[in-house]
């Protein structure tokens, strides 16, 4: 399918979705943006360690996809998953606390930024191995089908992950067995410093799945409504047992690959071009234009979100570190 652009389709959606839901999605995008800005700040202050990959610029993808899911669906994230787990509904306090390495974190401080898990939300991580979550997503899809369930497993990964063998094996099996897996490729144009054109023989990533006979679509990753729309279609496909679906969301990360990366491999102009298409500003304009939200609503969201983020930092700072004995727990589930 081609990128969704038609005006009418957009208005249709704007009207179809209840105001409360618009407000939720908008709030979530703003929350992720501010949360990530704060995470970056905390990282600079060394309150957060390790590698820290921010989601800024890609907010529409996770929010659009997650908004179309059911609570009992499963999510496999990447190491750039702060935004993914927040969009999945996890408590910002527990997410921030994990980045701080505190026992109140979603992974009790033992996972870190790249290993966020939240069983209550069916958020299964959180892997720091590029492409490592794709075979696992196929396994979750297998389990859903095995049980005759109607859930879907969403699997996020980047443009770089497409070149891993794991991608190939997983998509072939998911297609062969018609597993309910929604593969979401967040194509932000770069894998670390490598432009997609230098990594993929066919830079049009949707073409990369032709060999699996899998349903697919390209979508503007900066357009929340377009993502929401295709997500609904794709998830419907998966639920109906017709097999997996592949979405390529063309997006962009405003920051470097991680907090350690100055991103000297791309031009200011390029970054600016993308900022102009900012997914939050765009959605905000649409909502105001359609009279769904008012300036007051926007300001309220802004205030609420700032409080939530501030609170998440306060909570994290005040939370205790894991007790020393935690070093030895959770290695095995069985007593040894």
């Amino acid at each position, binding site marked *: 399918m081609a990128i969704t652009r038609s005006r009418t389709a957009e208005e249709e959606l704007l009207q179809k979705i209840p105001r409360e839901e618009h407000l939720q999605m908008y709030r979530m995008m703003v929350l992720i943006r501010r949360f990530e800005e704060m995470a970056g700040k905390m990282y600079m202050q060394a309150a957060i360690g390790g590698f820290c990959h921010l989601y800024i610029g890609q907010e529409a993808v996770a929010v659009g996809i997650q908004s179309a899911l059911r609570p009992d669906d499963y999510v496999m994230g990447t190491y750039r998953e702060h935004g993914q787990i927040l969009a999945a509904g996890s408590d910002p306090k527990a997410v921030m606390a994990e980045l701080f390495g505190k026992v109140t974190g979603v992974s009790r401080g033992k996972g870190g930024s790249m*290993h966020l898990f939240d*069983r209550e939300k069916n958020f299964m*991580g959180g892997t720091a191995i590029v492409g*490592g979550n794709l*075979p*696992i997503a196929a396994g*979750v899809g297998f389990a859903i089908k095995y049980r005759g369930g109607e859930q879907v497993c969403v699997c996020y990964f980047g443009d770089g992950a497409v070149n891993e*063998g794991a991608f190939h094996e997983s998509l072939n099996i998911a297609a062969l067995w018609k597993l309910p897996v929604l593969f979401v490729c967040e194509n932000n144009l770069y894998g670390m410093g490598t432009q997609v054109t230098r990594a993929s023989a066919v830079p049009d990533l949707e073409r990369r799945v032709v060999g699996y006979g899998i349903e697919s679509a390209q979508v503007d990753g900066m357009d929340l409504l377009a993502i929401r729309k295709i997500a609904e279609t794709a998830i419907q496909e998966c639920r109906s047992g017709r097999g997996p679906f592949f979405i390529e969301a063309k997006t962009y990360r405003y920051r470097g690959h991680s907090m350690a990366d100055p991103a000297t491999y791309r031009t200011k102009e390029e970054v600016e071009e993308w900022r102009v298409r900012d997914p939050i500003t765009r959605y905000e304009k649409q909502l105001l234009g359609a009279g769904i939200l008012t300036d007051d609503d926007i300001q309220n969201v802004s205030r609420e979100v700032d409080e939530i983020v501030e609170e998440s930092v306060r909570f994290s700072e005040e939370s205790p570190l894991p007790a020393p004995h935690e070093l030895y727990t959770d*290695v095995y589930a069985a007593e040894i």
Partner: protein
Amino acid sequence: MPVITYREALNQALREEMRQDPDVFIVGEEVAEYQGAYKVTEGMLAEFGPQRVVDTPISEEAIAGIGVGAALAGLKPVIEMMTVNFSLLALDQIVNHAAKYLYMSGGQYNVPMVMRAPTGVGLQLGAQHSQNFESWFVHCPGLKVVLPATPYDAKGLLKSSIRDPDPVIFLEHELIYLTKGEVPDEDYVVPLGVADIKRKGTDVSIICYSRMALFAMKAAERLEEEGISAEVVDLRTLRPLDVDAVLESVRKTHRAVVCEEDWPMCGMGAELSATIMEGAFDYLDAPVKRISGVDVPMPYAKNLEKLAVPGEEDIYQACRQIVAGEI
């Protein structure tokens, strides 16, 4: 008690567990229609159908991922790697994911999965098809590693492994599938992490596992004829390791011969040797003797392969020497 083969014992274990737990299934290359490359899953497709006995494309990394993902979602997968040699293509899933999920998630997600694989030397299968990697798996916290030597242990340990809430690497030596032994028809389990004194002795402890345990038993018989009383400690599980059983035996015999078919460097023999020194140094009358495979890739030629693989004679000689004070 019925006498059946090691292979039949594994088949029984799989069937019994699949009958009593609908969440158990088996997936891998040629496990269904082909009845298993080594026929361990013979007849299972017919009994359980293609939903629970699942053939896959040749995609080892994905097979392991199917196991991890299905386990995370609450099933109890048994994945079969056609041989352990091919598991090298799946190690990221096993070591970076299966072994770490519980820890990284702060206790939220355990991975109750079993990876079964034939291991060890075959009959002139060459360098890429005659390997042992148990030491690699033993090296990794989060994994459990099981290598049964007898049909009885094979059935009981496989059932325990399937019921275990953690990822278990279950390795079956290719050359013992047809060995026979008494195996109860009914349901029983052999607990993980417990060694078995397969033979009591007083002069030397032979610490072993898998096929080497069978050689050890034969060697012990020959030694007895010479008045040497060897104790055979079959570890059965390498992780968790039954350190107490090992040390208790060595403290009694004051001499230890540790056996592995695998290459020596950083192998299980080295771990046992170090563990024994750490726990029974003052009891040792001689240094612990390691018996391992020759430190070379496996040659194809029959005569060379024979030279590369350790066996009964090596254990026999080592025990004689160590008891005679020649080591």
